């Protein structure tokens, strides 16, 4: 059997698998529709930072003084910025009813006499009515009330400090003058919030990358698993009766998986970039990572096929492995934030390495910067895949 013949055999096996796969709708669901739909739902709708959800807050003000008016003005400004959506309530009971009924997520109550108390430097209270079921909105409401209170505290402090020196004061005019001078004083330390735009991984990219990687581990299963199926169905015996090397069948199956895996990743990268606005980074580095990622995913599937005794079992093993590794690798939880055992364990998962590598690339890294990660992933592929392949091959003969 010549070299050419064996290449042809490999290609025939691979082409047959790809053709078979192209007729199977599940290939499109797993390799394309699933990850794309999810990336768009998660990254597009939730990550669309152009118009984030405004927090729905209620406000009941039972005081007609100027300080309370100032609070309402501050809220109106936030509403104009679409940070919050304000609903007016009559009184505290009405506000509590709104929060309880879920019509607003949280709210503010300012009682009668509030402005007078503030102006005469008496203790006063802003009440935030929170819903433990909406902790984020409650945090937002508290933060708004806190910053308003901090400003009032500052004005009182500034005014009172001046008055300890400037005895001419005490008159209402002077206090009003000091108050407006204090308000006009610029803030010395300005906290500027920067969402590492342009450099950081935005939500669209994050979801596009992690979902593509997650589904890849399912997409590439078929070629490997069809080996088990053909063994079960007896077609493998028939193929092996032909003058073909056993390895030609295995390699052919691997190539078809590889082809479909790379193809689906390339289409996903293109689609999420065009439709979802994902930024994957340097195309060459992305390409290298795709090839390495497909090989790693195949190695996992090969091991599943090697351990399994039936096609059903092989599907179950491969899916379970893909889920567990995805879980440990940070698909569903930010494992990197957990120190210690889990963080260490997560590095056993190729998902973790792939996600970090893709993340680095989206931050602007090139192939050259990925040396260590690539080495780990290739080593994983060679060791895990090698063990899997050897035992699969052995099973093919033993039968």
């Amino acid at each position, binding site marked *: 059997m010549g070299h050419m013949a064996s290449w042809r055999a490999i290609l025939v096996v691979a082409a047959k698998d790809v053709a078979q796969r192209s007729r199977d*709708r*599940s290939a499109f*669901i*797993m390799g394309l529709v*699933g*990850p794309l*739909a*999810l990336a768009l739902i998660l990254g597009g709708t939730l990550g669309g930072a152009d118009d984030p*959800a405004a927090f729905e807050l209620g406000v009941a003000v039972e005081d007609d003084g100027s300080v309370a008016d100032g609070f309402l003005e501050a809220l109106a400004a936030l509403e104009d910025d679409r940070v919050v959506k304000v609903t007016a309530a009559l009184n*505290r009971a009405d506000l*509590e009813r709104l929060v309880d009924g879920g019509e607003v997520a949280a709210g503010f109550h300012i009682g009668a006499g509030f402005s007078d108390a*503030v102006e005469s430097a008496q*203790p*006063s*209270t802003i009440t*935030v*009515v*929170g819903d*433990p*079921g909406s*902790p*984020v909105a409650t*945090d937002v409401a508290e*933060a708004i009330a*806190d*910053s308003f*209170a*901090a400003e009032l*505290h*500052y004005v009182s*402090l500034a005014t009172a*400090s*001046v008055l*300890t*020196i*400037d005895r001419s004061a005490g008159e209402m005019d002077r206090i009003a003058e000091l108050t407006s001078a204090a308000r006009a004083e610029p803030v010395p*330390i*300005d906290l*500027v919030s920067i*969402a*590492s735009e342009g450099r*950081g*991984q935005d*939500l669209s990219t994050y979801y596009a990358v992690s979902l593509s990687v997650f589904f890849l581990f*399912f997409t590439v299963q078929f070629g490997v698993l069809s080996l088990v199926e053909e063994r079960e169905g007896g077609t493998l015996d028939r193929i092996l009766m032909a003058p073909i090397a056993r390895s030609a069948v295995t390699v052919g199956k691997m190539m078809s998986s590889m082809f479909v895996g790379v193809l689906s990743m390339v289409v996903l990268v293109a689609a999420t970039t065009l439709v979802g606005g994902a930024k994957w980074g340097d195309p060459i580095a992305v390409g290298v990572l795709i090839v390495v990622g497909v090989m790693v995913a195949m190695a996992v599937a090969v091991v599943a096929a090697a351990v399994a005794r039936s*096609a*059903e*079992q092989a*599907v*179950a093993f491969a*899916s379970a492995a893909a889920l*567990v590794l995805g*879980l*440990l690798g940070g698909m*569903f*939880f930010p494992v*990197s*934030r957990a120190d210690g*055992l*889990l963080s260490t364990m997560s590095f056993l998962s190729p998902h973790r390495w792939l996600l970090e590598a893709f993340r680095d690339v989206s931050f602007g890294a090139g192939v050259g910067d990925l040396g260590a990660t690539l080495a780990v992933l290739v080593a994983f592929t060679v060791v895990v895949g090698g063990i899997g392949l050897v035992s699969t091959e052995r099973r093919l003969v033993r039968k």
Partner: protein
Amino acid sequence: MSVLVIAANNLRRLVRERANLFFVFVLPLALILVLGVTVAGDEPRIGVHVEGDVTPGAQQLIEGLDEVDGVGVELFDDLGAATDELEREDVTALVVVPVGYDDTIAAGGVAEVEYRVIPTSGGFEMQSLVRSVVADQNTVIRAGRVVEEQTGLPPAQASERVTALTEGIAGVEVVTIDADGDGYVEADRVGFVAGQQLILFVFLMSMVAASALIQSRQLGVTRRMLATPATTAQVIAGEGLGRFAVALVQGAFIVGATALLFGLDWGSWPATAAIIVSFALVATAAAMFVGALATNENQSAAIGMALGLALAALGGCMVPFEVFPGWLRSVAHITPHAWAVDAFTEVIQRGGGVGQIGLELTVLALFGISLLVAASISLRRAIVG
């Protein structure tokens, strides 16, 4: 009777296959482990980088941050290293103090302190903590400036005056209460995340297991069962009952293990049990439906996986409803997941009992029953044609 026989046979088949046991228990175990570590996770850390020398003013800012409870502060000499840690989410946020911070403030200018976050890490809570630290510092400096301007005192003395008064000024207190007028108790957020993940995984694992029904169909077992006096509904119920038991065990396993090992608070036990039972019913029925529709095992695994994750994403299992736009929150409630998430919100976060989640449980039961009916009809059609 025939329902129980079919169910018993299915369970026997399931237990005999070691692969299934792995799937039924190892996956929840991995989930439990991850949840556990999340509970035990270290306090969030914030990175601080001071450009140039660490001046007294910058030092004061750092100390202010350090005094905040539940937040760790880590100083970075190198901005690159700090940015790396931020991008790896090792620190939740990075505070960058500009060159000449003290000089700018002393000269009456505005010092721009950067608060850097990456969009995926959220961290609103952290931002408001940092803001309040900055606000405290602003109050003293700013009041000092006013005193300087109004009285002509030199800066040091103006600042002394202000500092002396700081504690004595009656401030505005912000008090948070809940809708019943009681003190607001913030629920453990990890508990809620655990609820979200339980819903996601119980459903996903059921969907992946839908292949069993297809196998029975392909082997002709289902056809033969239908040849007996058993009705399609009975066959579906039988096939489903075993799967239902597995979903229940998985749910109970996740709740029990996280509660016992990591002290996770799942709220009212009867209510949590009711949610698990009704959602396991939905998950099983959905799996039966997909199993009856799909034409081969690969297909059902693909559909199951994609559907399981898409419904979970839309149903509020990955991102809390609070940050959904209003219209999307309504759309989300076409998924059973959203109702189960609502039920867990009521039980875990608001401390509600079975009485408070009647609506959610009813909707889940209706989802389950309609899916079972749909599964029976499709199975009948798939086999009888």
